[in-house]
């Protein structure tokens, strides 16, 4: 706006080494983040560095752990299975969450509150309770098996299979997809669809040409979040999956707790981290290039 110039410097400036007229408030800000920084350094950065270090040095220095990882025949299979499961879970979550989030933007404030509560409900129930609930549902003679048996389809036991794990993951991941989608969709002007239809586009085409592209940033961030979270998921696969069809997190746990192969586990963890970072990088490039929203443009 027409505020006096020279006030309001960019907030992004990092603390430290700023030029002379550093204001007291900004200097204080540096101190405020100290506890969090210290915590991260001690309990995240140091262990992480240690894990990576050991993956190259334990039991002997070099890339031995990584070459073993490539050739043991299990790790790569598990890694690929994890990635595929992650993609499928993210896609399924998206398909369920998109219409849900869209509806949230169309109902009144009370309906919206109710829908938010419903979506957050899993957050407020214990992780173990939720997973054991799925255990009961998916086991032989469980609700799902019984329901399918009733219509003549026998032996639908999801427990101990990747689909069984995926179904539960989708449910757990739903809030992580709904919330970013909703916050993205909330910012889309509802009149845009009216405008598109008045200009001659049928409702569905107005949606495809206008609404969908504008909701993509939300889709992207929700999808990335869910994908990355599923890659490292441990409790659900450990409880509902089987060792024969394990995912990366289970494999790492086995290597650490049963085989005491810290170097191998470290290598697997490092690869997982690299894959995650790669996914994030690709997404951020994609988000910048597509410049689908004003946000993307003004942020540049």
């Amino acid at each position, binding site marked *: 706006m027409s505020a006096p110039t020279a006030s309001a410097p960019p907030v992004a400036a990092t603390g430290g080494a700023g030029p002379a007229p550093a204001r007291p408030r900004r200097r204080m800000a540096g101190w405020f983040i100290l506890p969090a920084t210290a915590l991260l350094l001690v309990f995240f950065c140091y262990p992480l560095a240690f894990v990576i270090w050991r993956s190259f040095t334990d039991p002997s220095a070099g890339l031995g752990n990584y070459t073993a990882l490539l050739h043991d025949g299990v790790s790569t299979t598990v890694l690929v299975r994890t990635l595929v499961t992650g993609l499928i879970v993210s896609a399924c979550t998206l398909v369920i969450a998109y219409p849900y989030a869209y509806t949230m933007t169309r109902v009144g404030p009370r309906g919206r509150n109710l829908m938010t509560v419903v979506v957050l409900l899993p957050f407020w129930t214990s992780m173990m309770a939720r997973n054991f609930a799925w255990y009961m549902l998916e086991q032989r003679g469980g609700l799902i098996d019984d329901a399918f048996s009733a219509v003549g389809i026998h032996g639908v036991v999801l427990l101990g299979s990747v689909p069984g794990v995926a179904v539960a993951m989708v449910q757990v991941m739903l809030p992580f997809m709904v919330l970013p989608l909703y916050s993205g969709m909330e910012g889309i*002007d509802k*009149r845009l669809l009216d*405008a598109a*239809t*008045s*200009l001659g586009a049928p409702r569905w*085409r107005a949606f495809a040409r206008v609404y969908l592209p504008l909701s993509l940033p939300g889709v992207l961030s929700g999808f990335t979040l869910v994908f990355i979270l599923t890659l490292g998921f441990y409790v659900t696969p450990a409880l509902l999956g089987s060792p024969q069809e394990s995912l990366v997190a289970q494999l790492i746990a086995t290597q650490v707790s049963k085989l005491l192969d810290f170097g191998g586990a470290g290598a697997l963890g490092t690869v997982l981290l690299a894959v995650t970072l790669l996914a994030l990088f690709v997404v951020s490039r994609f988000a910048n290039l597509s410049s*689908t929203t004003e946000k993307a*443009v*003004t942020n540049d």
Partner: protein
Amino acid sequence: MSHSDTSTSTGPGIRIAGVSKVYHGTSRPAVDDVSLDIADGEFITFLGPSGSGKTTMLSMLAGFVSVSGGTIEIDGRDVSRQKPHRRNLGVVFQQYALFPHMSVAKNVAFPLQQRRMPKAQIAAKVAETLKLVHLEDYADRLPSMLSGGQQQRVALARAVVYQPRALLMDEPLGALDRRLRDQLQREIARMHRELGMTFIFVTHDQHEALTLSDRIAVFNDGKVEQVGTPSELYERPGTLFVAQFLGESTCFRGTVDATAGLLRCEGFAARAPRLDAGLDGTGGVAIVRPERLELHPGAGDVPSGHNQASATVTEIVYVGNHHQVGLRFGDGTTGSAMRVAGRSLPAVPGEEVTVSWDPEHQSIVPAPGGASASPSVLEAAGA
């Protein structure tokens, strides 16, 4: 300004017949039995305060809102149940509603693509239309890189590029500042002249309505109070609401005496030609515009046949090209008169003056609520 051609072309046009809208969960209709014929090529304005139903009426024309009763016909065809994308109308929104992820050119091309126009033709048409709104150099920009006025011009270009049957505008200037508003107002008038398209314009701004329109429909409480040319509405308001919403006026309340041809007010009687006999004995209001009031010092010499009343000058405000003289009449009615700058002022504040006016320039309307209410201070709407 441009209300030269108000000849009622009886051919094709848009006909609104007894249209009502009751929103779900409400009992009072937002639009209540509105009937209106809009001629081909006409510039008609729906004028009214917020909540008067004017925007709902426009949304029903566009098809965004379903009609609860009545029909909307375009060129004799009932479109009441037709989907918006089949109506072939252009709509301009107050908040522009440009597609933020498309360039200016792509925004303008959108309706042409929907109509499956060949690419080369689209490019030519887009360039031509952007020239019409003076934005040919901005084709590749995103809407977010344009000012509000420029964005609204893109919206205008997008809404006329496919030569729709009519252009509907919902408070298109509402989000702009004063200077831009005046500028864009002139552009809209020019586009109407050049395109010869039917324009339906919604606003709450009487100034916009008066300067742009061939005809104005004044909305109040879901109903159309009066339809007419700007000068008809200004010179011959049919209701007190119209008089107060459109321009300033002095409103004398009294009782109609149809046999004597008078409106009997407190302290004086106003001669009123062509009084409706049906109003006899009921409350009436005489409405006089400020530029029609003559001021005479003291007892004054009033031209014969003119109505007169004495008043106290309460204030004199200098407005540049004229003085605005505040008046308080014997019955407490307040009003204002206009005195062109250069003419001497008949009095200073606090002094008595005689106010006179030609009965031809006064309108008698029924008092709201019927009975001859006690004279109350009626404030003129807007300035």
